[in-house]
């Protein structure tokens, strides 16, 4: 029986395993050094906040794996011998595979800051990071202030986590507005204000110079490059993005760049070795997508796809229309299609914001053809299925604005804003 070994028990690897099991009787083994069972990484924050216990983040009960004949092995893969098709573990044991799927995800970026490896300095990605945070920031007596470095999705989640335990947070963001390399100005500035409303000390346009230690080697303060200001703190969260977690592959014959290089079939340069999820890097980016996509949904799609290939139906990874979601403290965010921070050439933005400063949308469209390119929505839920269809049908912006209520996904009895949005849109057309 063919033995499929998957390194990594995150959403990508587990999705691949589940689909291979559905399609075949192959022997499947998932290897992980992080946890015994699959859990939802995006839910770790809720464990720290007390919304969930860690067990709640596990989507399948523990009997699921045995019942579906998916072997779980806890161990850290030290290197891969692709010639003999053998994995060697840190503890000295090894595992033979016939086909190998690498799905090892990401690790937090560190940019060589002085003091970045001190006690009390951590990323927020692995379960071990969460345990670390529990040690250094259990409450606001032990952690009198935390400093977060890097204004992305993980940074704001870490700020929310610490805020839930009334730990004062200073949030250092390199850009001069939160996440503005992705979000258009109006949205980004709305989130700036929302962060400050939560009493988070948001510092825009600043960089970390160094992290200082006390006599026992634990963080005691940080220094800001621009102002030389020293901020005393007990915890530093490094959340300046993530990069592929592939250090253990460097010794092998598998080709890597920033991530593991794959073609559209998710195949590496070595036969029978595949890479999916955050750790995979496309030779040729697909459409407007980045060559490395570190997103839950794309990891899942690659898992769905590679399972087909492994089970004899070789197909390319061909994601449909881009979509994503996040939550910025109390404000939910969804995006469908492409909305760039600044409109692409021949594109324009229509922006609407509610007066309560917690809801807004931005629509990107082609100013010549009026084709609808994408929408960002904050504080208003929208239907994935409807936007996916409109994008496939290449609807124009007039159609989308006139039919926006069809896409509304807010709970029943919520106030609706489509009329307000439409009249704002019509007004903007007249004055343009």
């Amino acid at each position, binding site marked *: 029986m063919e033995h499929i070994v998957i390194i990594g028990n995150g959403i990508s690897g587990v999705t691949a395993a589940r689909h291979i099991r559905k399609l075949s009787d192959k022997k499947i083994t998932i290897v992980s050094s992080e946890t015994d069972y699959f859990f939802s990484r995006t839910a770790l924050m809720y464990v720290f906040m007390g919304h969930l*216990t860690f067990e709640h983040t596990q989507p399948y009960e523990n009997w699921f794996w045995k019942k579906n004949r998916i072997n779980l092995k806890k161990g850290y893969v030290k290197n891969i011998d692709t010639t003999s098709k053998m994995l060697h573990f840190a503890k000295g044991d090894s595992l033979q595979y016939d086909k190998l799927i690498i799905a090892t995800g990401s690790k937090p970026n560190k940019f060589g800051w002085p003091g970045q490896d001190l006690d009390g300095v951590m990323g927020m990605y692995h379960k071990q990071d969460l345990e670390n945070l529990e040690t250094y920031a259990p409450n606001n007596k032990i952690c009198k202030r935390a400093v977060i470095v890097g204004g992305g999705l993980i940074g704001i989640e870490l700020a929310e986590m610490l805020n839930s335990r009334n*730990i004062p947070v200073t949030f250092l963001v390199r850009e001069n507005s939160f996440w503005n390399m992705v979000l258009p100005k109006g949205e980004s500035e709305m989130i700036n204000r929302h962060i400050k409303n939560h009493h988070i000390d948001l510092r825009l346009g600043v960089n970390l110079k160094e992290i200082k230690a006390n006599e026992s080697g634990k963080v005691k303060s940080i220094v800001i490059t621009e102002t030389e200001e020293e901020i005393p703190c007990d915890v530093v969260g490094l959340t300046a993005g993530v990069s592929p977690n592939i250090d253990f592959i460097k010794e092998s014959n598998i080709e890597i760049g920033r991530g593991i290089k794959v073609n559209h079939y998710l195949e590496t340069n070595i036969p029978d070795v595949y890479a999916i999820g955050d750790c995979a890097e496309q030779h040729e980016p697909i459409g407007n997508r980045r060559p490395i996509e570190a997103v839950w949904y794309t990891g*899942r799609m690659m898992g769905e796809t590679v399972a087909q290939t492994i089970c004899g139906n070789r197909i390319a990874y061909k994601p449909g229309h881009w*979509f994503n979601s996040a939550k910025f403290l109390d404000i939910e965010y969804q995006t469908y299609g492409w909305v760039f921070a600044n409109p692409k050439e021949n594109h324009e933005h229509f922006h609407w914001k509610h007066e309560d400063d917690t809801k807004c949308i931005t629509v990107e469209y082609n100013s010549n053809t009026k084709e609808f390119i994408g929408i960002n929505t904050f504080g208003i839920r929208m239907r994935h299925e409807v936007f996916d269809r409109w994008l496939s049908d290449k609807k124009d912006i007039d159609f989308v604005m006139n039919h926006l209520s069809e896409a509304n996904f807010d709970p029943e009895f919520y*106030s609706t804003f489509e009329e307000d949005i439409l009249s704002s849109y019509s007004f903007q057309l007249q004055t343009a």
Partner: protein
Amino acid sequence: MSHKINPSMSLVKPEANNLSTKQKISISLGIIGFFILILALLNTNFPNKGLFLTIALGLISVGTILFANDAYLTKLEGIKNDGVWFKSISSRGTLGWIAGIILTLFYIVLYFFEELLGQGVNGAANTGLISLFDPFSLLLSGRPASQWFVYGTLYTVAILIFGYKFMLKYRHNRYQQLRTASVMFFQLGFAFLIPEFMARLNESPDYNLPYYDLKSMWPLNYYLFDGWSLDGLLSSGNIGLALLIFGVVSIFVISPILTYKYGKRWYCSWVCGCGGLAETAGDSFRQLSSKKLSAWKLERWLIHTVLVFSVIMTVAMIYTYLGSDPNKFWLTKGTFLISAGAFLTLIFVLAMAFKRHELGTDARYGAIGYFIIIALLLTIHFLGTTTEVFFINSGNLRSAYGFYIGAIFSGVVGTGFYPILGNRVWCRFGCPMAAILGFQQRMFSKFRITTNGGQCISCGNCSTYCEMGIDVRSYAQKGENIVRSSCVGCGVCSAVCPRGVLKLENDSLKGRINSKEILLGNDVDLMDLINHK
């Protein structure tokens, strides 16, 4: 350290969730209110009972309201579940167990030792706690209080004050606010005030109305077809007859129509008193319901067993009632039994004919249940006498139901165990009304919880906060709509979802259940290939 012992994985219990000074003062006020009730329970003879009752209930209410104000109005609108699994009361900690034991003991005393509460027996005046409620009861119905009046008052106060708290907690969510206002209204008006005023009618010799909560439907109010209840209704002129007809129409006509249009939530989360208490006073315990597959299996066996029991018990009661005076009614006991059997057969045949493919293996269990009922009906028919069915007095059957189901299951376990098993234990495992509405919801309703394409991140908030123990995530992460007979449509899964994935909706029956292997967002050809196989 094991996660079982310390779910937060923290070495030091997070202290940031300590109570504020205002919250401590609020709790103190509530405790003083409770202390007055306890003094009354210990037979303290208060001089002005009306005044002291007002002070006691007033302090409890003001304490809860001030607590809620400080807990929620000092923060921005949004999901307020911080620290739920760190707090002793809401994570089966010491406080949770203490609360569970006190509640359970209260229910045992309430159902079986009412004299301990001061219930006067054989016409004697009330003493103790119950006597404290006498002035209020006299004001409303003109009768002295009973243990049920005390219970009803406390129950209503709990729904009102914790309903207020719930509305503040979800002040960004209109659905939650409206349905909470609705259960508060129905509890105060339909379950509490109207029956008390109806008792006023009985001061006239023309009326002999039993306690009648207009919103409580058979089989939840299993006593509707008891001899004393039927006697009372039938001897109370047109009003009594109208109430009886309303009772029958509400279960056979009104409820199927509303459940078809809106799902069983119209009742369970908008009207019902049991649901009302669970959603308000019980809200802090919703995350404690078990989501295991084994719990779901137990749930299905238990709730349907209770349903079968209640149907048989009711049939036996009516059968005996009709048999007691054969010439009094146009309906004879034989005709009644045949109609009951025919009606069940009709439903069974329709479900099998139109929904067999949807039911799958459940069809077998449905068939077993159906044949058990028919066999029991036949037994009644051939072996029953005017007073006995299954060789026991049908009154005993009714008493057994009242004892095991009405008192032990719905009261002692159903509410007493809130802090241990979650707030919908009764609704999930026992309520025969929920079983009937659930059957309708699963088979024939426009209601579903829509999953938003591929947006689920499997975080587990929806499953954790589902009070009915539905593993909502297992559907959402497959892009599949949630169509479950047990769903009471509280809407909290949708509220706590951080990615806007879930929406409670009434839409067409077609495509309501939409199983998918490959989620929206991937290669269109692949989705077609796999999902339409």
